[in-house]
């Protein structure tokens, strides 16, 4: 182990005593800390003013008597005002910089029991900032019997070393992570790890955070929870301002984001603060940031770097200080390569990047999220809806199966719960309601997610659509589309069977079409009635 070096002020009051045998009946911190069996002070850096040289002599002698191992090194430091923070800090900083200290070869303890309170605070700050590369040493008189040695303890500023504090930190950190998850007991390890990381990052930085992930993965909700957490911890005031950049197309985008001056353009009838100003002191969540135009990107970059930007039509810059959270479902790196996203803005955003997995990638979290959605529904509608046991089992069996694509992620889940709740007026979701909902979801995902809406749901029930084979569905979609625009069944038949009409002498296209539609429970009246 390394030799121990103590840096300490001579205590002009605490270390003073009547010079006589009785001084050994009194606790004197400088002498006492050299009297412990379990602390060997090899080097004692004693700081004192000229005024106290005589006291320093006595104390040095007494240290030599009780601790021959200790070499006392005296440094005279005279303060004009020992309670003046600026002077004391500055002098001590110079002292710390000039003091030969080798933390690799000596264990440095900074004694903060003596000296003025200002000196103690300065020693603490210098130690915390590593100008004094050591740990804090605290001494105190023993309680009860008078005792010359007193007691000592070392305070390590790394709080994680203290069991009870570390436990509290861990608990609080777990609480904060849970807060970010809106109290949902998620089980997906990758997701939980990511939330723990966000928790750590969120409480330590005001730098931009980038949330990636598919639509409906919960980026917006998470951004809001990060803001609420920071607000709860008093790390942030202001408000949470959210905007989807996909809605900021064209000329109005600049004005919406950065505000404008009255009369800046036609229709600018009054001053507008803009979203960045509204987020001052708080948090700005720019969802779908990949949709932002290049000009707006440049302005945003400037606003996060300099906290300044120019409202439309203004000749004076506006100021706003906010934390930016950006969301995107695009691969921004690819956008940079394609030239649609600024590289410098991407670099600025790419410091804390978190990718939220889609719901399909964290199926183990569907059950807890289902309960969460039911709770939310209850809160919103003031009416609690529950599953019966079998219905819940059926629903989860489907939800967890590969057949459930969850392409809209939590948005799909939320909508699904809303539908089931709405179709269960007695507040109890039964097997029938679940069966219908599963059919709806299936049809939603069979094509809805990948191709454009084929319009079949206009003509058929969701159950019927869900029961279609993809083979039939494509054909039927074309057929109904043709029927919908034809003036008569015969006209539709002629269009649909045009090729065979050329080859055959006599045909009944209308009859052939009627039979085909009948297979799906459709008749010509359906089309005429709805046109």
């Amino acid at each position: 182990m390394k030799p121990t070096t103590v840096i300490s002020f001579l205590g002009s009051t605490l270390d003073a005593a009547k010079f006589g045998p009785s001084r050994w009946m009194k606790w004197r911190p400088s002498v006492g800390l050299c009297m412990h069996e379990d602390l060997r002070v090899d080097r004692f850096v004693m700081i004192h003013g000229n005024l106290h040289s005589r006291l320093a002599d006595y104390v040095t002698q007494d240290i030599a008597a009780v601790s021959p191992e200790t070499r006392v090194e005296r440094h005279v430091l005279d303060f004009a005002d020992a309670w003046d923070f600026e002077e004391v800090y500055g002098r001590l900083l110079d002292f710390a910089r000039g003091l030969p200290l080798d933390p690799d070869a000596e264990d440095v303890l900074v004694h903060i029991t003596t000296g003025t309170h200002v000196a103690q605070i300065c020693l603490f700050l210098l130690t915390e900032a590593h100008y004094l590369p050591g740990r804090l040493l605290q001494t105190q008189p023993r309680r009860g019997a008078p005792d010359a040695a007193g007691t000592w303890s070392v305070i390590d500023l790394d709080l994680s070393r203290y069991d009870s504090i570390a436990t509290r930190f861990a608990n609080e950190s777990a609480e904060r992570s849970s807060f970010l998850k809106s109290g949902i007991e998620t089980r997906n390890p990758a997701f939980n790890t990511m939330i723990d990381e966000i928790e750590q990052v969120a409480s330590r930085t005001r730098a931009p955070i980038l949330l990636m992930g598919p639509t409906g993965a919960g980026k917006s909700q998470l951004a809001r929870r990060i803001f609420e957490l920071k607000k709860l911890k008093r790390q942030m005031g202001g408000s949470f301002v959210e905007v989807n950049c996909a809605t900021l197309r064209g000329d109005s985008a600049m004005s919406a984001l950065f505000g404008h001056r009255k009369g800046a353009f036609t229709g600018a009838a009054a001053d507008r603060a803009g979203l960045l100003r509204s987020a001052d002191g708080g948090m700005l969540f720019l969802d779908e940031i990949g949709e932002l135009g290049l000009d707006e990107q440049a302005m945003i970059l400037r606003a996060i770097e300099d906290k300044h930007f120019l409202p439309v039509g203004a000749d004076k810059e506006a100021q706003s200080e906010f934390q930016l959270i950006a969301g995107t479902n695009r691969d921004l790196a690819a956008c940079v390569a394609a030239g649609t996203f600024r590289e410098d803005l991407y670099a600025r955003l790419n410091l804390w990047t978190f990718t939220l997995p889609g719901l399909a990638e964290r199926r183990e979290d569907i059950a807890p999220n289902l309960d969460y959605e039911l709770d939310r529904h209850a809160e919103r509608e003031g009416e609690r809806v529950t599953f019966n046991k079998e219905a819940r089992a059926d629903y989860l069996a489907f939800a967890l199966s590969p057949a459930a694509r969850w392409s809209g992620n939590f948005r799909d889940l939320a909508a699904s719960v809303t539908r089931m709740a709405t179709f269960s007026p007695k507040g109890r979701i039964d097997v029938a309601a679940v069966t219908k909902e599963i059919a709806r979801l299936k049809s939603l995902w069979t094509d809805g997610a990948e191709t454009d809406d084929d319009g079949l749901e206009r003509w058929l029930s969701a159950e019927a659509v869900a029961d279609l084979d993809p083979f039939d569905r494509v054909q039927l979609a074309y057929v109904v589309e043709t029927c919908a625009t034809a003036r008569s069944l015969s006209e539709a038949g002629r269009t649909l069977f045009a090729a065979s009409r050329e080859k055959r002498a006599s045909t009944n296209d209308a009859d052939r079409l009627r039979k085909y539609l009948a297979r799906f429970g459709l008749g010509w009246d359906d089309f005429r009635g709805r046109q």
Partner: protein
Amino acid sequence: MIIIDGSEGEGGGQMVRNSCALSLVTGQPFRITNIRGKRSKPGLMRQHVTAVEAAAAISGSACSGLSVGSSELTFTPGKARAGDYRFAVGTAGSTGLVLQTVLMPLLLADGPSRLVLEGGTHNMQAPPFDFIERCFLPVINRMGPRVSARLVRHGFYPRGGGRIEVEIAPAPLAPLDCTRRGALLGVRAQAPYCGLAGEIPQRMIDRARKELPNWGAADFAIRKLPEDQGPGVILMLEARYQEATEIVSGFGQLGVTAERLGKTAAARMRGYLECEAFAGPYLADQLILPFVLAGGGAFTTVKPSQHLITAIDIAQRFTGRAVRLEQQSESGHRVWVG
């Protein structure tokens, strides 16, 4: 390499000191693990470090793990060299304990040595100087060597600052039979003090006298030492027999009344007076090393302490010599080496 588990037995400090002494005499390296493992402040304390440093200083031995708080110490002995040495001991340590570490190696070294030891001479952690001088060293001198010790200045806790000088003339240790103490020659009670009110030693004496009614008034003495050696006070009760001398002491402590110290010391003295053993508990601990190194001999003692049993165990491991401990009467025990 002898490996010792420091958490076994009692007296981690004594274990370290005796191991150093035996290692220097026998030339065997050792390692102690878990030093003072069961204590609230485990590992080596300052006084242990000082003692090991002294052992290394007289022999050029190599140590690793020698620092305050260390729980493992490895000691590779050099050869003890006669010479003039000066060791200064910190406040809570004791000059006597440093002497205990280096005495055996210097007794068996190639020439006379002179030691100056500075620090505590009369403090709680160890037998006082008077005990070393009048109880322990006379036995050593009867075994062959010539060792004399002089108290130059008292050193009390917490101030320390005492000084003793020791002259050592080596000679082989001869086995000794110390099974009888002989007839009582005299008793004495002394209370040296300084830097305190004179009524404190007086109250200690008064109380001890009450407990020891057979002792005459002339057997009790208070001695005022120069102020600057204090504060400090000690009551030492001494019984001189033809073959043995025992000194028990009560150290002045803040928070403990003079009367209680006087009463406890007197009770311990009565315990010795009433038995027939040669060695009291502290002397017994200290005799193990010279007797084992002499290769024979025997002494009688009172009920063995854990310290004594540990000392025997360590000595056997370094020398391979059998040390037997036998109960002879209700409290009388006999220790012999052979």
